[in-house]
């Protein structure tokens, strides 16, 4: 592969997360390098989504810290994480159902729109003049994303009416509209047929390739993971049991055991 993998951009250090008595994550450490595709795999309930939610500021881990581009954060909320340049998609679709495809993706531009929401509401409640021009520029950007994801035909469709696979694409589009440094994808291909999976893989590879976006990917389909990942972290029962290139992980005994479900 010709792409240049850079320095560590995201460093997860000794993260532990509990929900009451449930230990969702125990002492997890791994790093993500710039421009790489880093996958997190593991059986159901292994703690993959919890890990992503810690990075995204949805959950605050009891122990450990996360370093992003040299900045340490432990008590950040999702909004602050978004401001730092981390975008995400959701395992369970979390689109804005009442809105069209364009509007959904447009919301991803929110942070790029200059004046803050409150001042905008007061100063310029109906978007006249400068704000109108700014809006048009953002809309243009959104149109590029729509072309890129090949969903032109559904621009004005309320997202609730789209097929599951297309909704997943809109979810990706909304995250891309943020122009993130790091993209966190929680099972972007779950519930898709083979063709849809291939499309989605292609989009992820293209984003990574063309925009140099770093990708952290949770996925159950081993074929896809082994195909597109640079490195893979394996979680099981909230612990890290493997970390390395797809080949290394594939031949790791503990990983094989976890996936085959045998204890010895």
């Amino acid at each position, binding site marked *: 592969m010709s792409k240049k993998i850079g320095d560590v951009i995201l460093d997860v250090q000794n993260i532990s997360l509990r929900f009451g008595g449930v230990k969702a994550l125990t002492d997890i450490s791994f790093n993500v390098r710039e421009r790489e595709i880093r996958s997190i795999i593991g059986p159901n309930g292994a703690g993959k989504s919890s890990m992503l939610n810690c990075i995204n500021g949805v959950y605050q881990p009891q122990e450990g810290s996360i370093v992003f581009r040299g900045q340490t954060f432990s008590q950040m909320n999702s909004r602050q994480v978004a401001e730092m340049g981390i975008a995400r998609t959701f395992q369970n679709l*979390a689109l804005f*159902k009442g*809105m069209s495809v364009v509007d959904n993706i447009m919301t991803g531009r929110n942070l790029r729109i200059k004046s803050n*929401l409150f001042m905008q509401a007061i100063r310029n409640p109906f978007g006249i003049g400068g704000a109108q021009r700014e809006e048009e520029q953002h809309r243009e950007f959104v149109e590029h994303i729509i072309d890129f994801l090949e969903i032109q035909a559904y621009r004005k469709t309320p997202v609730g009416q789209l097929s599951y696979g297309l909704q997943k694409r809109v979810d990706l589009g909304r995250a891309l509209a*943020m122009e993130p440094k790091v993209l966190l994808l929680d099972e972007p291909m779950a519930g898709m047929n083979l063709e849809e999976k291939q499309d989605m893989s292609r989009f992820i590879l293209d984003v990574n390739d063309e925009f140099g976006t770093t990708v952290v990917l949770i996925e159950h389909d081993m074929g896809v993971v082994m195909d597109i990942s640079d490195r893979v972290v394996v979680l099981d029962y909230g612990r890290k049991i493997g970390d390395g290139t797809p080949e290394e992980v594939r031949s790791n005994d503990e990983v094989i055991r976890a996936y085959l479900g045998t204890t010895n």
Partner: protein
Amino acid sequence: MAEAPGKRTHWDFNWRSANGFKGGTMAFFLETLLGGLMAGMLYSLVALGFVLIFKASGVFNFAQGAMVLFAALAMARFAEWAPAWFGFESKFLANLIAFALAAALMFVLAWLIERLVLRHLVNQEAATLLMATLGITYFIDGLGQTIFGSDIYRIDVGMPKDPAFVLESVFEGGVLVNLEDVYAACLAALLVALLSLFFQKTVTGRALRAVADDHQAAQSIGIPLNGIWVVVWCVAGIVALVAGIIWGSKLGVQFSLTTVALRALPVIILGGLTSVPGAIIGGLIIGVGEKLSEVYLGPYIGGGIEIWFAYALALVFLLFRPQGLFGEKIIDRV
């Protein structure tokens, strides 16, 4: 409208006209319908306050009625005080300044509520939030009376008090309309239209809709929940102010204004707590239903239907469509 018994010059809408019943003519039906629509528009306005806050923050804002009274008190008293403060006579100017000051006060109130209450209750149970707004209700009631006094005050923004007759060429005697109601309904309709425009066409409006749809996703793309809540409570405050001015100038500014909010409850049940069009159409249905039932059923069941009709309708509605006309269907996650 008096009418000679048995007179059949109007197109007979209703068989009862033949018996000299005054509700028997098309003109009278129109009158009732119009009256209902106009009253309904005002219910919609108050219901909208509830819906906005519920959509954006999942809070059923018990304090909506208190906000209406508070805003009306501010409007009435500032209009009284402004001429003395700034040394002028003009009534128009006094009202203008009072409106600006009352609006500013509602902004401050919204900001305080977010800062001191909501911010600390993120992700709490709906019941906890409801109780919090109950607390806010008492606080606002107390604060309003402390600052502005607890007598009955007048708001006079120059609403015409005289009735007028329209469509005299179509119906003999014309259709009687209350000009005050027409103004009020137009004002309410204008506000509703502006709000819809704001929600559909602006960046802030889009962010508001995003938060209403999915808090978590909205935050993950960098929309600040706190900021949105301030905006929403401000908007609800302005809605309360306009409602307060309209009702206050009709009924006088007094404690009973808080019950205006209770009038909006059936509207919300009918329209659904999550739907802006639902609040509007629900309000119109209730308004028209109240008036028509009073006039056409009243003679049989006895007067005073107007008072309980809305609740009865809402109850029947709850049995068949608990999510309201336009509300989202409640599906439990399994």
